[in-house]
C-alpha cells in the first residue's frame, strides 16, 4: 500500500483529513488503489450522500434551479481529491464542500439581483392563509426567507443541527470551531428562527382579522 502526506489547508477550505484518526504511519493517508476500486468508492458515495448533499446546499442557500449543477460540482470536487480523502471522512468533505459551494452560490445570486433587477429577494406574502401556507412550495419559500435573513454562521449551524441532525461534536469537527461556539450559535439561531416565525404568524393573523 502506498501513502501520501496529509496536507494542511486554510480554514474553511475542505479538509480531507478532518475528523478521522490516522491510518497507517503517522501523518500518512492510505492511497486508494485501482481505477475500479476508485469508481466503486465514488459510486457508493453518490448513492449514500447525493440527497444529503442536495439538502445541505438547498438549506444553505443554493437556489432550487441550481441544485443539479452544484451537487455535480461537489462530487466532481470529491472525485478530484478522492485520493486525499481518508476513508470515512468523505461525509465531512462533502459537507464542507457543499457549504463552500452554497456560499459561492449565495454571493452569485446576490450579484445577479444587483446587476439585473435591482430588486430585493422575493418576500413571502405574510397574508397567506393557513391553506396556502400548507402548500409545500409556499412553506419552502417561507423557510428560504427565514434562513436567508439569518447570519450565515447561524444558518449553517442551525441547518446542520435541525435538518441534518448532526451532533454538536460533529458540527464542531466539520466547521473546525469549538463545541461551545456551536452551542451558542445554535441557541441564537433558534431564537431568531422562532422570532421570525412568530412575526409571520402574527402578521398573518392581523391581516386575516
Amino acid at each position: 500500500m502506498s501513502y501520501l502526506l496529509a496536507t494542511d489547508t486554510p480554514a474553511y477550505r475542505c479538509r480531507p483529513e478532518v475528523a478521522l484518526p490516522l491510518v497507517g504511519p503517522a501523518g500518512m493517508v492510505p492511497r486508494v488503489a485501482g481505477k475500479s476500486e476508485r469508481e466503486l468508492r465514488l459510486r457508493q458515495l453518490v448513492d449514500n450522500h447525493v440527497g444529503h448533499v442536495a439538502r445541505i446546499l438547498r438549506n444553505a442557500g443554493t437556489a432550487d434551479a441550481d441544485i443539479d449543477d452544484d451537487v455535480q460540482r461537489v462530487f466532481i470536487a470529491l472525485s478530484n481529491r478522492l485520493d486525499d480523502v481518508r476513508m470515512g471522512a468523505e461525509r465531512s468533505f462533502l459537507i464542507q464542500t457543499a457549504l463552500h459551494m452554497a456560499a459561492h452560490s449565495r454571493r452569485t445570486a446576490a450579484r445577479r439581483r444587483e446587476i439585473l433587477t435591482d430588486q430585493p429577494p422575493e418576500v413571502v406574502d405574510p397574508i397567506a392563509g393557513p391553506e396556502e401556507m400548507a402548500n409545500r412550495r409556499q412553506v419552502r419559500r417561507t423557510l428560504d426567507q427565514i434562513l436567508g435573513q439569518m447570519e450565515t454562521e447561524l444558518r449553517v449551524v442551525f441547518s446542520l443541527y435541525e435538518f441534518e441532525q448532526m451532533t454538536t461534536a460533529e458540527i464542531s469537527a466539520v466547521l473546525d470551531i469549538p463545541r461551545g461556539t456551536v452551542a451558542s450559535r445554535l441557541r441564537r439561531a433558534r431564537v431568531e428562527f422562532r422570532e421570525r416565525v412568530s412575526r409571520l404568524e402574527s402578521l398573518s393573523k392581523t391581516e386575516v382579522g
Partner: protein
Amino acid sequence: MDEPDRMLEQTGSALERALLHEGRAYLGPADLRAKTLAALGLAGTASLATGGALAWLSAKTWATKLLLTLSAASVLVGIPVGYFALRHSPAPVLRPAEVPAPPTNPAATVVPPTNADTPVPAPAVTPPAGITTMSSARASGGGGSASSALRAELAALDAARSTLASGDSVGALSFLDAYFRTFPRGRLRPEAEVLRMDALARGGRTDDARKYAQEFLRRHPNSVLAARVQSFAKP
C-alpha cells in the same frame, strides 16, 4: 455536554413544524443521482438498479457484458437485442460541428460498434417490420416513464463508454450517434457530447475534438463539464 432536543421534538406552532419538516424533507430532483453519476463518468449499468446489473457484473467476457447492457436497454425501451445483432453497418462519419438533428424518421437506427479503422458513412437503414425503436416507443406512449427513459440513456452511454474503454473509438462514436438520434432532447446530452470529444481525440481526430469542444464551450460556458471540455479545446 448534553445535546439539546431537536426543535421538531419540542412543541411548536404548526407553521414552525411545517418549516422544520420541509428543511428535513428536501431531497432534490428525482434524476439527481443519475445526472451526478453521468457527470462523474460513472453512468453505467449499475445505475439500472435491477437484477440485470448483477448479471452484468458477473459476466466474464466483454461481449457478454455488452450484450447484457444492450438487453437491459432494449427491455426498457422495447428494442429486441436481435435487432442490434443483425446490424453490422459501418460507423457513420460525424463532424464536430454536426450536432445531430432530431430524427426526421421516427424509426431511428441504432448502429453497433465496428472495429473498422476508417469510418465509413452508414447507409440509411429501415428497421425490419415489427421492430419498435426507442423513438417510436416513446412517441407512441409505450416507452414508459421519464425515469425509464433516463435509464435507457444511461445504458446507451455506458455502451459507448465501454466500447471506448476497449479501444474502439469508432464503435463508441457509432453508439453516440445512435444516442443522439434516439434522444434528441436527452437529459444526458452534455455528458454524451463530452464522451464524443473523448472518442474523437482517442481516434486521432484531435482537430475535430477541439472544434467540437470549442463549440460546446461557446454554448455552455458555465457547464459543470467545462473543466473537462477545456482539455479537449486546447490546441
